[in-house]
């Protein structure tokens, strides 16, 4: 498609190439986590990245925003291959690529107020000429994500899980990014809180025309909020396509297995006994 914002080609990522004589006397081979992954995300598009633990979905997300360096392949963001950039050249792009983390408790500094957590990146990226201007932007974004103004003076431990994740979202969108990576951002939340957070994310995504990579193990959530889905297994993309198509007629046996394994709150006396279409290790 013409309007691609982010295009990854042939991504190979491997971990653990370092040699540790103490732990393993032989030189350890780096373990490949991604084996040549292709992915594209259009402007304003929401793409779900699904897979089970060890599938490489988190690593793929990190490679997309330049947090891990691939051993091969390219990540082109708005025309620039970010894998070729050094830190200084990368910095202006960082504002445009933001991330929302899984666990807001560990990704928000416990010693800083929410105000400081939100003002700092605004100042750092030069979006406001002084503290007052930055604070005004922060006040605006608090309204936008449904947090009370009083949150400015609170610490993360004083907020509920849902409120903390709203702070995580606020920190990402306050910088007016083009692309947001959301890695399992609702997996620790109750269903009612999850519904609120995801509705908010959908709204922001639409209003700000964000491209969103939504990493999740929950296919029901992905089906509800994503346009397209990429199914990963052991570092490979095994299936990719529009959600409507993939969920109606999955091509890969693994996709079918994943979908069949989701317990739905409906009466299906045969679900439990139904065997997987491919064997699960």
């Amino acid at each position, binding site marked *: 498609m013409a309007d691609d914002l982010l295009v990854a080609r042939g991504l190979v990522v491997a971990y653990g190439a370092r040699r540790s004589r103490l732990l393993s006397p032989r030189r350890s081979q780096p373990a490949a986590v991604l084996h040549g992954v292709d992915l594209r995300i259009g402007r304003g598009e929401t793409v779900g990245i699904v897979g*089970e*633990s060890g599938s490489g979905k988190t690593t793929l997300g990190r490679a997309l925003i330049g947090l891990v360096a691939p051993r091969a392949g390219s990540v082109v963001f708005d025309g620039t291959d970010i894998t070729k950039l050094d830190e200084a050249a990368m910095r202006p792009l960082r504002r445009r690529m933001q991330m929302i983390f899984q666990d807001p408790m560990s990704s928000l500094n416990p010693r800083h107020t929410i105000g400081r957590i939100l003002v700092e990146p605004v100042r750092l990226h030069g979006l406001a000429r002084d503290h007052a201007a930055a604070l005004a932007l922060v006040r605006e974004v608090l309204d936008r994500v449904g947090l009370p103004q009083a949150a400015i003076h609170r610490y993360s431990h004083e907020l509920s*899980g849902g409120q903390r994740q709203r702070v995580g979202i606020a920190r990402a969108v306050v910088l007016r990014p083009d692309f947001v990576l959301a890695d399992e951002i609702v997996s620790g939340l*109750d*269903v*009612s*809180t*999850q*519904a*609120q957070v*995801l*509705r908010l994310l959908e709204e922001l995504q639409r209003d700000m025309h964000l491209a969103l990579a939504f990493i999740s*193990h*929950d*296919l*029901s*959530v*992905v*089906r*509800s*909020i994503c346009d397209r889905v990429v199914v990963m297994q052991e570092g490979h993309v095994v299936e990719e396509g529009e*959600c409507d198509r993939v*969920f109606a007629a999955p091509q890969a046996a693994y996709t079918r*297995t*994943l*979908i*069949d*394994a*989701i*317990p*739905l*709150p*409906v*009466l*299906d006396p045969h*679900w*439990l*006994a139904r065997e*997987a279409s491919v064997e*699960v290790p």
Partner: protein
Amino acid sequence: MSKTRLSVDGLTAISGRDGGRPILRGVSLGIDVGEVHGLVGESGAGKSTIAKAILGIVPSQVKITAGRIDFEGLDLLSLSSTSLRAVLGRDIALIPQDPLTALNPSRRIAAQLTDGLCLKRGLSRRDAAARARALLEEVQLRDPDRVMRCYPHQLSGGMRQRVLIAAAFALEPKLVIADEPTTALDVTVQKQILRLIRALQERHGTSVLFVSHDLGVVANICDRITVLYMGKVMEQGVAAEVIASPRHAYTRALLAASPRYDRPDAGLEPIAAAVIATLRSEIAAWDAGASDRVARHG
């Protein structure tokens, strides 16, 4: 007629840390022989507290202020710790949520599985080992001899959970408390584990109290369901009825909030303010009644 194995009656508890905040509000539920009973609710609903009360392991800041837990004629809450210990493990077993922290990292699986068999069943080490191996086969672990020699970190999450299920069913308990046993697992592994728990439970006629936050899981494994909100039972009934035609607004709201791949336009519905108001007033009404009762008796 089905026979009741466990009955919880009017269980009420406060958490002392916050100056006696109520955390269980007169919870009653019964589990029949051979029944899988689902306990669902969001965080703070009191699901785990109920499980812990049955196991006699409520944290020190929690005080049970009223109610009974009757297990086949034994009043569990009034048993001495020695008598309770005789019942636990042998007649009541636990499948914990996190299969990694529940196993001792420095001991092999064989040692951890045989302890209970030697202590509670009086088996010799050799007989216990043979029984443990058979149990690992029963939970469909592929190479039971190798698993016996392994330390927990050498096994995957799914394998560790199978080991813990083997341990829970080892002494042929009458009641198994499964506390979010699949929350940490991938969906494909979760399905296998659910199938395994159901198969073992049916084979041995075990009663199971299945604690979960996931209505989808509960709908597919439980015979009956209790829905909790802030320590109070909101709805209780046969699983098929609670899921297909929920009577309480909270159950309906939970179902509407659950995302569903089969109906992408339904689900993810935040709970309406009116429902939250109803819930709050039900809780407040109970609390007012409770303080009346305390006042009258005190």
